[in-house]
C-alpha cells in the first residue's frame, strides 16, 4: 500500500466536499460579519454611554451662547467626551443631585459686562463633592474654556463695534452688533473637525473594528471545521485497520487525511477572503486595512495559525467522529476558546489568570498573532507549528489505539 495512493483518494474525497463546504462557509461568513458589526456597534454605544453629561445654565436667547456650546461640541469631532444639556438652574441642581449629570456650568447673564466693569461675576462650574479624577479635571478645563470663549467672542465683537463707530459712521452700530455676532459665531465658532480623536482601541495601534476582525476571524476558522464534518463523520474504522495491515500505519493515515483537509481549508479561506469585501459592503461596514497582510513576514505567521487550528479541529474529529457528537464537540470547543481567548470580547478585559490561560490556548495564540500582524508588532509561527505537530501526534496515537481495539 502506497501512501501516495491513499493521499490521492483522500484528496478526491475532499474535492467532493468542497462545494458543500463553500456554501456553508459563506453562510458562516454572513453570520460572522453580522456578529462583528453588532459587537462593534455595541462597543461604540457603550462608549457613547460613557460620555459625560454637563448641564448648561445660560441665556440661550443670545445667539452666540448656543453657538459657543454647539461649537464646543463640534470641536469634539468624535463627540466622544461631552454632552451639553441646556436647562434651568433648579433643574440642573436636581439632575446633579440625581447624578444624571456630572456637573453644570452657569454663565451669568451679565458675565461679560461684569468683566469689563472690573467686578467679575464669574462663570460657575458646579459639581458634587468627592468628584475627582479625569472627569473633574476635564470639566474644570471646560469651565475655563467657556469663560475664555465668551470673553474672546465679546472682545472680537467689541473691537468690531469700535471699528464700525469710528470708521463707518453711516452704519447703525446697534443694528450692526447682532449681524457681527452672528457672522463671527457662524464663521469661527461653528467650524468643526478642527481636530480628530483617534481611538487606539484594545491593543496598541489597533482599531476596534480590526481587533474584532481578528477575533471573529479566529472564531470563524474554528467553527468552519463544522462545514467539513462530512469528511470526518463517515470514516470507516475497518478501513483504518485494513490500511494498517497493508503497511499504512496510523501516522501515515493521519497525514494523508490531514493534508487534503488543510488544503481544502486554505482554498476555502481564499474564496472567503475574496468574497469578504462584498459582504462588508453589503452590511455597510468598512473592511479593515489589508496592507499588513501584504507583508512577506505576515504569511508564515498566517499559515502557521491556520495549520494549528486545522490540526486542532482534525484532532477533535479524531476524538469524536460521530456526526452529531463530533459537530457538538467542535462547536463547544470553538465557543469556549472564543470567549476565553478574546475572540468576542477583548482579552484585556479579563482577569489576569484568564488572560494567561487564554494566551496558552490555540485560539489565544491565533488572536494575538493576528492582532500582532495588523498592529505591526508581528506574530509567532513556531508555537502554532509546535501545537499543530502535537495535535497530529495525538491524532495518530488515538488512531492507533482505535485500530488495535
Amino acid at each position: 500500500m502506497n501512501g501516495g495512493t491513499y493521499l490521492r483518494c483522500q484528496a478526491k474525497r475532499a474535492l467532493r466536499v468542497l462545494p458543500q463546504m463553500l456554501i456553508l462557509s459563506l453562510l458562516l461568513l454572513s453570520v460572522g460579519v453580522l456578529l462583528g458589526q453588532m459587537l462593534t456597534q455595541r462597543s461604540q454605544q457603550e462608549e457613547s454611554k460613557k460620555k459625560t453629561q454637563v448641564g448648561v445654565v445660560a441665556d440661550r436667547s443670545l445667539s452666540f451662547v448656543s453657538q459657543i456650546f454647539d461649537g464646543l461640541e463640534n470641536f469634539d469631532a468624535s463627540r466622544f467626551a461631552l454632552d451639553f444639556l441646556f436647562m434651568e438652574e433648579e433643574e440642573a441642581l436636581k439632575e446633579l443631585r440625581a447624578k444624571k449629570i456630572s456637573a453644570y456650568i452657569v454663565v451669568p447673564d451679565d458675565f461679560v459686562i461684569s468683566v469689563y466693569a472690573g467686578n467679575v461675576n464669574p462663570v460657575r462650574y458646579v459639581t458634587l463633592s468627592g468628584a475627582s479624577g479625569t472627569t473633574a479635571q476635564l470639566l474644570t478645563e471646560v469651565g475655563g474654556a467657556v469663560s475664555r470663549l465668551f470673553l474672546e467672542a465679546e472682545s472680537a465683537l467689541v473691537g468690531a463695534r469700535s471699528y464700525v463707530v469710528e470708521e463707518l459712521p453711516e452704519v447703525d452700530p446697534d443694528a450692526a452688533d447682532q449681524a457681527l455676532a452672528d457672522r463671527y459665531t457662524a464663521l469661527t465658532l461653528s467650524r468643526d473637525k478642527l481636530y480628530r480623536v483617534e481611538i487606539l482601541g484594545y491593543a496598541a495601534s489597533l482599531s476596534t473594528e480590526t481587533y474584532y476582525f481578528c477575533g471573529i476571524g479566529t472564531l470563524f476558522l474554528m467553527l468552519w471545521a463544522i462545514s467539513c464534518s462530512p469528511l470526518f463523520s463517515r470514516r470507516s474504522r475497518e478501513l483504518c485497520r485494513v490500511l494498517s495491515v497493508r503497511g499504512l500505519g496510523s501516522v501515515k493515515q493521519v497525514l494523508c487525511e490531514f493534508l487534503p483537509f488543510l488544503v481544502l481549508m486554505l482554498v476555502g479561506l481564499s474564496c472567503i477572503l475574496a468574497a469578504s469585501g462584498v459582504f462588508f459592503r453589503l452590511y455597510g461596514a468598512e473592511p479593515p486595512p489589508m496592507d499588513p497582510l501584504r507583508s512577506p513576514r505576515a504569511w508564515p505567521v498566517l499559515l502557521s495559525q491556520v495549520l494549528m487550528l486545522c490540526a486542532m479541529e482534525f484532532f477533535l474529529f479524531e476524538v469524536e467522529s460521530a456526526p452529531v457528537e463530533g459537530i457538538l464537540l467542535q462547536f463547544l470547543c470553538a465557543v469556549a476558546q472564543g470567549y476565553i481567548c478574546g475572540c468576542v470580547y477583548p482579552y484585556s478585559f479579563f482577569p489576569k489568570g484568564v488572560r494567561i490561560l487564554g494566551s496558552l490556548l490555540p485560539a489565544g495564540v491565533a488572536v494575538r498573532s493576528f492582532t500582532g500582524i495588523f498592529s505591526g508588532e508581528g506574530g509567532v509561527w513556531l508555537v502554532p507549528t509546535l501545537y499543530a505537530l502535537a495535535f497530529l501526534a495525538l491524532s495518530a496515537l488515538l488512531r492507533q489505539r482505535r485500530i488495535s481495539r
Partner: protein
Amino acid sequence: MDERNALIDIRKSYGKKEVLKGVTLPLGKGQALALAGPNGSGKSTLLRLLAGVIPSGGGEFRWRGEDLLVNRALARKLVAYVPQGTPLIDELTAWDNLRLWYDRQSLEQSLSEGMLRQLGVGDFLKTTAGKLSGGMRKRLSIGCAMSGQPEILLLDEPTAALDLVCKQALLDAFDLFRRQGGLILIATHDLLELSCCDRVLLLSHGTLSPYDYDGDARRLAQVLEQA
C-alpha cells in the same frame, strides 16, 4: 503436523483476561476452515491477530516456513483480511476504491478474468460506494482485499446480513479461490458458510477444538451453548 504451515501456540491477553490460550492448528493449501464459537469467544480477535491488526501475545503463524507474525512484509503480500464491516470510502466510486489497492493494469486484468470478474464487481464500477447495496459493498470489499494475489484469506462473517443469492455468489468466489490453492479461514455463525468449509473448528475458552459438523444446526447450537 507440517510445521511449515500451521498456527503454533497463539496467545493473546487483554490485561488479565486471556482470550487466546495457545491456539494450535495445522494449515494447508486449498483448505477452507470455519471458526465457530459463541459471541465473545475470540474469533475476530484471532483473525485480527493473524492479519496483523493487533499484536500477538506469543506464538507463530507459519506459512511456507516463514513466521508471518514476524515477517510483516511477506504477510502483507500473502494475507488478505476482510473485516466484519465494509472498509470502503463512501464518497468514491467502486473504481476509485479498487484503485486504492490495485494498480491499473492488474485491476483491469482481474476485472476481465480474475477474482473481480468472479465477484461481479464490474457491474457497478462507476457507482459511488455509499450508494451500493449491502451485497455489492461486501463484494467490493472482498475484491479490494484480493488485490496482490494473496494466498491466505481471513474472513470475518463475510456473508452476514446478505440474501441467499449474494451469499451463494460470494461462496462460489471463495470456492474458486480455494480450488486455486488458497487457504480460507472464516469466522462464522452462518450455516451455509459452515457447510461449504472442509473443517469446522470450535473456539471456546481460548482454545481450538475440531467439530464434526454434519449439517445438524441444533446439535451445534447445543454444543455452543455448553462451550
